[in-house]
């Protein structure tokens, strides 16, 4: 451009650059302030106003699957964000509705069913502790894809582990085994559950099977964690035995590990498989893993969600 054009005052590079920079800074800072101050209440209301999945699907036209992805990410964010927050009272209320919308928009969204069920069953404070919702979600998945034996197995698992209804668990494992293409060990798992469900050995077998048949790291790691918890339970059984012998000998329960060590019932301060010492609570006579341990809470000891 030759110089014969008279530039207005605002076009001079210095003025223009400063003006643009100022405006951009205002845009970003107003967004930041608004987000910091109002994000929580906005999120709350926005999620309160959860639209109906079917309606949303119709409105999204051919972009259902994409919208399903968006809602799945929101579900993950809601679960992960709530779990990690420091607040006293955690509310996972919206996890169920979000997962419902995701799977209505994309009924074949496998991950949403399986992982969604896992998140829903996690006990408070790590999750909402709602096995009923998880089972409903998986049944919805079965409705869509009746040949997915994994869903049947997952339901059976929930009955086994979280609801301790071994008859129902065995039933569902059996159903899973009947689906063509299912893993060969499901039938024996069903039989085992019926015979000795609830025993630590059958739990150990279950988790071992899950570990070996898992197709992703997350489930494998979870299986390892559960197996380690079972290991800790075995350890605690041994320690209780030692404490019992102390009582028979001394007439009173031990007050600390030092006493037990001094009396020769344990070699040193016992640590759990992750390396943290077990906690001996002399006031009510319990031995447990430390609350700081990764293995806390041990199975059978999840806290109830707040009323």
């Amino acid at each position, binding site marked *: 451009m030759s110089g014969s054009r008279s530039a207005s005052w605002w076009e001079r590079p210095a003025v*223009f650059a400063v003006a643009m920079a100022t405006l951009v800074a*205002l845009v*970003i800072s*107003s967004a930041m302030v*608004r987000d910091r101050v109002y994000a929580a*209440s906005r999120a709350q*209301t926005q999620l309160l*106003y959860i639209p109906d999945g079917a309606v949303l699907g119709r409105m999204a036209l051919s972009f259902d699957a994409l919208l399903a992805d968006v809602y799945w*990410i*929101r579900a993950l964010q809601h679960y992960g964000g709530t779990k990690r927050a420091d607040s006293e009272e955690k509310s996972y209320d919206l996890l169920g509705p979000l997962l419902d919308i995701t799977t209505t928009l994309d009924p074949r969204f496998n991950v949403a069913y399986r992982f969604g069920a896992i998140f829903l069953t996690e006990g408070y404070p790590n999750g909402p502790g709602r096995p009923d919702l998880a089972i409903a979600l998986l049944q919805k998945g079965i409705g869509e894809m009746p040949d997915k034996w994994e869903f049947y197995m997952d339901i059976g698992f929930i009955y086994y582990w979280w609801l301790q209804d071994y008859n129902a668990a065995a039933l569902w494992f059996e159903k899973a085994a009947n689906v063509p293409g299912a893993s060969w060990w499901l039938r024996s798992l069903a039989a085992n559950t019926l015979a000795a469900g609830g025993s630590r050995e059958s739990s150990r077998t279950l988790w071992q099977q899950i570990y070996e048949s898992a197709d992703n790291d997350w489930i494998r790691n979870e299986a390892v964690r559960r197996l380690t918890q079972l290991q800790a339970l075995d350890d605690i059984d041994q320690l209780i035995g030692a404490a019992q012998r102390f009582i028979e000998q001394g007439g009173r329960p031990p007050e600390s590990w030092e006493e037990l060590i001094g009396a020769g019932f344990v070699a040193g301060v016992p640590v759990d498989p992750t390396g943290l010492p077990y906690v001996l609570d002399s006031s009510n006579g319990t031995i447990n893993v430390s609350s700081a341990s990764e293995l806390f809470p041990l199975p059978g000891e999840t806290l109830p969600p707040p009323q």
Partner: protein
Amino acid sequence: MAVIPRIAVHVFKESVRDKVLYNLVLFAVLLIVASYLIGQLTAGQEVKIIKDLGLGATQVFGLFIAVFIGIGLVSKEVERRSIYSLLAKPVRRHELILGKYAGLVLTLAVNIAVMAVALYAVLGYMSWVETEEFRQSWEAPATDPAMLLAVFLVFTQLMLVTAIALFFSTFSSPILSAVLTFGLYVVGHFNADLRNFENVVDSPTAAYLARALYYVLPNLAPFDIRAEVVHAQPVTLGYVALTTGYAAAYIGALLLGAMFIFSRRDFK
């Protein structure tokens, strides 16, 4: 009267006589009135449905108006070359941009006002027709003044969309400008999810990129307070002020950019 207001008034006159605009507004009003009938089908949820549908219709039709009038006024004018005779008058190029924008905003305001009046008329009728005790069951009164806040934010959002349309039409063809503007509108509504990315992805680079995009791309979701208003959740003036300020700054940047591009370009 200075040049910019004259151009604005001309833009308004030209738009108001546009048949497309007429039909859009008419359709919106019909939809709002029809929402009353739709509301009758859902037991006990009439008011909510009318408010939802009414605000939604205002939003969607307002969007179409904003984009088509916005594009038509610069992009189409450049394409049809009616801009040549205008530029030969003692009008500076940036005055043209500002005048166009002012006229567009005026047109938009009038159209939104018409739709808001229709909505309030239906709600007012609803309120008048129902019994007192039924009215008590509503979360918020039918003719809740908070709805005006919702309409105001819709209008503000559309002012931003209009600025985007105007910006693109200073250098793109009408079709491309329309596509880009609609595209940014859709992206703008899911912008907030970009912020969630850092909780979901592992790589910090991706997270930073997502954050940067979140701030640069227009974030249109905060302008939608339908949920709050329909469920009678409070909306503070501070929130409205911040959101409006965001829009004002963004519009300022877009207009400045548009003025710059428009002043420098050749009209081949």
